[in-house]
């Protein structure tokens, strides 16, 4: 395997409110290889977005990256730990938009409302690529063409409120791709769009990725999207990655009870009327009041009484490369685990 593009280890992003601390991201480990699509999945509030924002160091205050490393292999060959940079400093700014770019969830509000699409894109190009205004304009037209914006020259002069949701998201993607980043972070880019537009945007991201050879970190809670685009998958629960595996292993050989619960709760074709959909019991715990031991144990159907509520599982690497945080899979537990638990 080649050198990874991004290596995150033990990343913690905490929000100190008054005397208490919300641990939004609490020890995440993740690797993104060049050209690869990694999907980050999990329920609302599990820390996916904050984890993505931590990479670019744009966590809103009072949030702070408090521990861990985010090693980015820069184009120059240099390795930088983004977690150690000053979030307002010049170095992180030279990475934002240039090497790591981000697409946001809300195309309605993620673009400046009183500037034209063109001015926002050319501003970014001129900031990073040091080209003339005219050249920046040409590149902006080119990137708008690339994201499938009809009549790109005219759209350059359009304001975001003049575009439909799908077109805005294309403009947003064009902005993110304007400086040819090597890593694109997409934070639920299709959630706010209707299903047809969703499919178009997904295809677009996939095509552009193949064309430009960039890596994509795709954040979503939609497992259908995951099946369609992911190379590998990381499942997050309460600020931690609980399972990380190749996409086929996730769908066919999920190890963590939480992942299996998520998969069971997908509505299937052929479900009978009146038949209930499987759900994961209970609610995501209040982040102020995190359960002891494994934070998933109160909702886990395979909970081992007396162990899961006391011992915090560590990261276990299985022979096929899957990494999982679960006592069922820790080596000294494996032989005594209940027979049904490993299927």
């Amino acid at each position, binding site marked *: 395997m080649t050198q990874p593009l991004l290596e995150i280890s033990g990343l913690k992003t905490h929000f100190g409110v008054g005397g208490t601390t919300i641990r939004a991201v609490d020890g995440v480990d993740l690797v993104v290889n060049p050209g690869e699509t990694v999907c980050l999945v999990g329920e609302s509030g599990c820390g996916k977005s904050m984890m993505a924002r931590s990479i670019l160091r744009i966590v809103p205050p009072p949030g702070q990256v408090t521990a861990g490393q985010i090693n980015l292999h820069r184009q120059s060959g240099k390795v930088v730990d983004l977690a150690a940079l000053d979030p307002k400093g010049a170095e992180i700014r030279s990475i934002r938009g240039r090497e790591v770019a981000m697409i946001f969830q809300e195309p309605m509000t993620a673009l400046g409302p009183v500037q034209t699409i063109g001015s926002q894109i050319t501003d970014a190009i001129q900031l990073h690529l040091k080209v003339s205004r005219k050249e920046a304009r040409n590149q902006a037209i080119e990137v708008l063409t690339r994201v499938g914006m009809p009549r790109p020259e005219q759209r350059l002069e359009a304001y975001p409120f003049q575009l439909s949701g799908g077109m805005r998201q294309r403009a947003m993607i064009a*902005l993110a791709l304007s400086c040819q980043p090597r890593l694109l972070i997409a934070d639920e880019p299709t959630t706010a769009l209707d299903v047809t537009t969703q499919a178009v945007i997904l295809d677009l991201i996939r095509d552009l990725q193949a064309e430009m050879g960039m890596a994509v970190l795709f954040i979503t809670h939609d497992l259908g999207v995951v099946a369609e685009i992911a190379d590998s998958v990381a499942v997050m629960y309460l600020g931690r990655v609980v399972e990380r595996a190749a996409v086929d292993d996730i769908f066919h050989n999920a190890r963590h009870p939480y992942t299996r619960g998520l998969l069971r709760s997908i509505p299937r074709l052929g479900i009978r009327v009146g038949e209930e959909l499987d759900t994961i019991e209970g609610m995501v715990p209040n982040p102020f009041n995190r359960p002891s031991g494994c934070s998933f144990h109160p909702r886990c159907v395979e909970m081992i009484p007396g162990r899961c509520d006391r011992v915090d599982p560590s990261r276990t690497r299985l022979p096929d490369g899957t990494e999982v945080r679960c006592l069922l899979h820790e080596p000294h537990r494996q032989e005594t685990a209940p027979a049904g638990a490993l299927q």
Partner: protein
Amino acid sequence: MLAFMLRRFIYMVVTLFLVSILSFAIIQLPPGDYLSSMVAGMSAEGQQVDQQFINAMRDRYGLGDPVYVQYWKWISGIVLRGDFGQSFEWNRPVSSLIYERMGLTLLLSVATLFFIWAVAFPIGIYSAIRKNSFGAHLATLVGFIGLAIPNFLIALVFMYLSFRYFGQSVGGLFSPQYENASWSLAKVGDLIAHMWIPIIVLGTAGTATLIRIMRANLLDELNKPYVTTARAMGHPEHVVLLKYPVRVALNPFVSTVGWVLPGLVSGATITAIVLNLPMSGPMLLRSLLTQDMYLAGSFILLLSTLTVIGTLISDILLAWLDPRIRYS
């Protein structure tokens, strides 16, 4: 944009026409007229008033005519000949009385408006981005004090300070030796030296209001996703702020011109009396008390014109600033 401006201009003319009718009617509302209050005044002083004299006066000023004829005489004079009529009390053309005061009133108002903007803009931005800092709280405190203390009181304090510590002549816009002198560089300098007190006094409340408006607007905008986008694209922090959220937060800031300008012209009456400023406010007040109707009516018409022009300017500025207004 041109069609927008034209449409606004037509609205403006219609509004002014309605205002002129309304202001004329309101002035006529109290019983009696200038002549009857003059006669009452003279009788009170024990003078004999000849009925023939009264009738002659009534004829001369057209006071016996029906209201709509009086209105027509007045408004047609203004529109067709620029003649605002004759002031009863001063026995001079209204236009010369008004122009005398309007120039300085406008100068002072515009200077105050720029003062308000220049102070409120940076402080407003500062107190939004450093929301809970000592400086922001200090700005809030000073702003609220400025808002809460009546202008005339601040005026008195400033008059005391300038007299006690700077040895300046107090009140008015000129030192005595320049009062009736013709315009020269020295007189302009003297004017500037006198202007700072009224500017600060008149501007304090407006500044405080605008600081709060700017702060609140910007706080709303600062957490919008597009600010995060700009930051995520690698723009330096000052560009992220000034180019994106501040641009949007400017809208209500600009739309305040509409009411700040006429507010300064008409609302400064008490301050103008205390500071003995040759502004329009005291004269309007006096003309209303004596039912000097052509003077009062013309004043009100001019103030309304200023209000409408202020609104027009702010509308045009807004449309220029915000494409969402321009295109819908």
